[in-house]
């Protein structure tokens, strides 16, 4: 019996199965609550798994032995965003100048508002620096954080919290501002909340998802340029 239990703990199957199960439960809850923002599937799935790890004593590395296979699919899924993007080629061409201006302005506001608010509440320097690249997707954010002297692991946490907040906001914002079309909703979500926002935007429509994916990719590039610049300007 004991050897069977310890096999369960070390087998990659467990982490894989638990992640799928947690996501399935989160999805069911989200549907039952008619997509209420607080039942965001990433948030609920993560909380369920955290509770399970805390109760069962399974460690994060043990869990990741299986869950890494799911994380691995993020790469090809990101590449697949080219499909809805191409479907929107016409709109992309028509709105290219507006999209580019919005990208730079939105990125600046994202970084500066975080920096200024952080300085106002007197966050420790390492925490503040780790916070700056949080609107970009995880691998870029970690790279930037390392370069400017933040803590990459803390940055991953900030990136995730930003993503979940951005995703949860989308529905109330969409209701409040019905004038925004799917392109606008998606692009703003990609700038503010990277991949998690993109996953949420895809639930609105494929067009929203495509422009969110585009914004996420481009914002990574722009943030990598802007964050070191702002750091030296604000003397952080």
């Amino acid at each position, binding site marked *: 019996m004991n050897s069977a239990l310890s096999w369960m703990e070390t087998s990659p199957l467990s982490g894989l199965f638990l992640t799928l199960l947690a996501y399935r439960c989160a999805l069911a809850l989200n549907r039952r609550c008619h997509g209420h923002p607080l039942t965001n599937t990433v948030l609920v799935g993560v909380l369920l798994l955290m509770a399970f790890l805390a109760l069962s004593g399974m460690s994060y590395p043990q869990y990741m032995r299986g869950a890494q296979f799911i994380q691995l699919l993020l790469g090809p899924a990101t590449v697949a*965003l080219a499909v809805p*993007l191409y479907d929107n080629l016409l709109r992309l061409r028509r709105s290219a100048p507006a999209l580019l201006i919005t990208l730079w302005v939105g990125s600046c506001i994202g970084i500066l508002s975080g920096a200024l608010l952080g300085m106002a509440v007197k966050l420790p320097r390492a925490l503040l620096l780790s916070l700056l690249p949080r609107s970009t997707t995880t691998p870029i954010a970690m790279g930037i954080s390392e370069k400017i002297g933040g803590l990459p692991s803390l940055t991953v946490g900030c990136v995730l919290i930003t993503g979940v907040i951005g995703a949860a906001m989308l529905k109330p*914002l969409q209701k409040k501002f019905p004038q925004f079309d799917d392109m606008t909703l998606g692009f703003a979500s990609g700038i503010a909340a990277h991949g998690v926002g993109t996953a949420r935007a895809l639930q609105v429509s494929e067009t929203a998802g495509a422009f969110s994916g585009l914004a996420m990719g481009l914002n990574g590039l722009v943030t990598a340029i802007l964050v070191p610049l702002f750091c030296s300007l604000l003397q952080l």
Partner: protein
Amino acid sequence: MLNSLIWLLGYQLAGEFLARSLSLPVPGSVLGMLLLFLTFCVRKTIPDHLKQTAPALLSHLSLLFIPAGVGVILLGSVLGAYGLPLLLLTLVSTLLTWLASAFLLHYLSSRQRRMRGAA
């Protein structure tokens, strides 16, 4: 499915290779997305198998972020001390970024449309 996986992984690998060899600050998967997009532009069509598999893969994109999210559990002590200010700051700043981007894009694209209508 098989063909799509070969395409997607191939483009990601090409993107990763490009990002590393040119030491660009962008993840390989994002470069892979742009490369695949350019390929579609040149071919002028999307291969049928990708047209079918891409939406299926993307419909559960949220699932793929869960493993990294569980990793926040490792940050317990830091988040305990600064959790609330960090959460509020992120909320305000993300909301601000979203609103500014959405209003600006909405304004710019409707202006563009009006100018095109006038011309």
